[in-house]
């Protein structure tokens, strides 16, 4: 769609599962393979996915999920939203003890929209390895080339 829609989409994440579900067409396919979410086609399932992202209780361990848009590439019928995700006050994240360990990651979401501007196809992916690096999981290195202008650590 555009940058403004991407912001609207992420603000709806933070608002409620109901608000985010309204942005999807009745006939939709949602996928976030990093969380093993494939071929989600039911609004009830979608609402339960987004329940987590709308959590507003900093004490229940589920975390408050701060997303920021990096950019949008595409047009009104399809495109890529690039985003950054900083879960705050999580106790556990994908099985990792992250209590009091700040971390963030980045990802991208491809959307296809129908003529009414509703999402009919979503494909979301993100860098989970970056989280293992951030929380200091033993033995996991970051892959990186070294640019000629890089300053040694």
């Amino acid at each position, binding site marked *: 769609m555009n940058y403004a829609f991407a912001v609207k989409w992420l603000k709806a994440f933070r608002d409620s599962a109901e608000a985010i579900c309204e942005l999807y067409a009745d006939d939709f396919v949602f996928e976030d393979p990093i969380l*093993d979410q494939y071929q989600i086609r039911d609004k009830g399932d979608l609402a339960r996915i987004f329940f987590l992202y709308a959590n507003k209780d900093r004490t*229940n361990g589920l975390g408050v999920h701060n997303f920021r848009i990096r950019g949008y*590439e595409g047009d009104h019928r399809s495109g890529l939203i690039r985003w950054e995700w900083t879960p705050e006050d999580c106790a556990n994240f994908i099985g*990792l003890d992250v209590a009091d360990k700040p971390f963030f990651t980045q990802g991208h979401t491809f959307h296809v929209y129908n003529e009414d501007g509703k999402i009919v196809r979503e494909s979301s*992916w*993100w860098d989970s390895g970056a989280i293992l690096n951030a929380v200091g999981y033993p033995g996991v290195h*970051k892959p990186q080339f070294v640019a000629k202008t890089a300053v040694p650590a």
Partner: protein
Amino acid sequence: MTDIEYAKRWADTRINDLAAHRALYAAPEDFCVETRMVDDHLGDTISTDEEFAEGLAGFSNKDQTNGLGVQQITVTEAFAGNGHVMIHWDWEVTGADTYRGLPVDGRTLTSKGSTFLQFDDNGKIILESTFLNENPLFQQLGLPIITPHYWEEGFDPASLG
């Protein structure tokens, strides 16, 4: 060339012919390739010939004995748009000594990935955004990564905290 055929050519050249792969992209500093979270563009964003060669060399390794691993990328879907395409692919590596520093111990690692390509008016790639699903890889290497199906009816979300 259809979009799925273009996607297959992109994947085939990525792992078999880096020079042909480079020809799919725009001129140096007119393109960016990002294949993970960008912490520092100097180490995470490929935008020159030198970085392209160094950063993507591992994909085209064919020596099963040097420990770098031999990769396969198999395109499964392509979603074409106006000046862009989103590609879904399966990924496999054999013969790698390590993955992100973790010992592989002779395993074949498999997962899935996605790549978004944006083109200029000449059909050259000006942006690549790629993410590989690493959770299955970490699981295959024995790390305690979990992806509970909390969206399924009856799951107690409180158990995630």
